[in-house]
């Protein structure tokens, strides 16, 4: 019987290595996309008006 212990452990850690590479890539990309610049706060205002319903004073307390 073959021992699959180490291949399966390395398989798991390889997955998490891929995650780490992805995280580093998108983290660096976030600088390019302006998340840390002076427009970085824009999204938090935009999200408040994304409802499809007409705004009324009573809609949000």
């Amino acid at each position, binding site marked *: 019987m073959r*021992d*699959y*212990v*180490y*291949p*399966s*452990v390395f*398989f*798991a850690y390889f*997955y*998490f290595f*891929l*995650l*780490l590479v*992805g*995280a580093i890539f998108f*983290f660096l990309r*976030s600088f390019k*996309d*302006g*998340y*840390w610049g002076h*427009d*970085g*706060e*824009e*999204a*938090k*205002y*935009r*999200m*408040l*008006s*994304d*409802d*499809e*319903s*007409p*705004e*009324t004073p*009573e*809609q*949000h*307390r």
Partner: protein
Amino acid sequence: MQSEATIRRAGEIPVSAAARYNESIHQDTTARLFLASSITYFFIVGIVALVIAAKFVWPQLMGTIPMLTYGRLRPLHVNGMLFGWLLAADMGLMYYVVPRLCGVRLWSEKLGIATAALWNVIILGAVVTLLLGVNQGLEYAELPLPLDVLVVVAWVMFGANIFMTVATRKYTQMYVTIWYCLGTILWTAFVYLTGNFATLFSTGVNQANLNWMYVHNAVGLIFTPVGLAIAYYFIPKTSNNPLHSHKLSMIGFWSLAFVYVWTGAHHMIHGPISQWLQTISIVFSVMLLIPVWAVVYNFFATMRGQWQQLRDNVPLKFLMTGVVFYLLTCFQGPMHSLRSVNAIVSKTDWIPGHAHMAVLGAFSFFAIAGAYYVVPRICKTRLYSDALANWSFWLFLIGGVGFFVTLWLGGFWQGWQWNNPAIPFIDTVIALEPVWLVRFFSGILMFGGIVTFAYNILATMLGPKGNQSQAALATA
């Protein structure tokens, strides 16, 4: 506010324009299906939870019928609550939130409906197989292999739909909720594959280590990011107040992304794994305080000057109470990982107290708040009963606090007894009976919360529909 520079493509009707014409561009069928089914499972699995809590106090309850033994019901409770209720409810909320934040329709409503159908097949399959005793024997990974494969298929369908929706978004910059949603989809894929497939091909200590990495990351990289995604959306929405700092939210996201994955081995402290691995897991566990501080400070600062809203805004009550529970559970976690504390609390009843505060007290509270906010809107009606919603909050809160505190005290006491070799093990079991009795009665209160919540939501879904202007007033 929204600027022209952020609008990517011209020619498409933005959501805000549709609002002006009192029309919705969103169908929300998928969100409705996921929410209705998940809340139904919440009620059914709540009964199972109550039964197993009763079995601690009255072990002879339900005799020796195999399907009704603790060993069969406990995995059903865990999987039912995690995947039948919480993850499904979170998926339903993501189907609602992501298209709105992107300013476009869901990429494929048909694919979403198919995903909801498949997810229900999986949950019903889990009920049957776990009651029959078909079980992989690994914590959180009890589902048999064919159901694991179906989960992967359903997750790919879900992920493709969300990613394609985000890919067609109108705005270049994504609100932090979308970051967390995308992170959840990717991390869940990796975590689930490791926990349900890689563990099957390893043995001994390596298998245990992989399993605990999966268990911890199931909470840390599945339920935490999706829970925070929901909180980041609904706290500003329900309070009608912008998030304190989007940049701080990004710091929280990236620190979670880099830190969380390496903490699973703290479940094996004082166990047969190498000391360096234990130490690494302790260091990363303590580093978790960084994303936790970033998240919690941001939420509390968002509420600055708005606390009076907690008087009568039920979703906000659930959200901010969930934030407090999140802070507490995330303070406990790093402390548990310290070797001296771990020697007392590990494997005791303290741990279910801690885990329930995370999954129920924090993330389920966020999901409940989301459901109270979303369901009246997608059904274009008012919430069935505001009073019942308030009752559900207090039942959950009082029952939950009773449950958590009882298990912490009982678990700490249990740990001290286990550290005294002069006390026979069976005496430590008998000593905890009063603790389990209080837990059972706390469970009854929490189940009361589930009943009032589920009845309120399902009555809203099935009740008479109002018009759009009524829906606009529906603040839940």
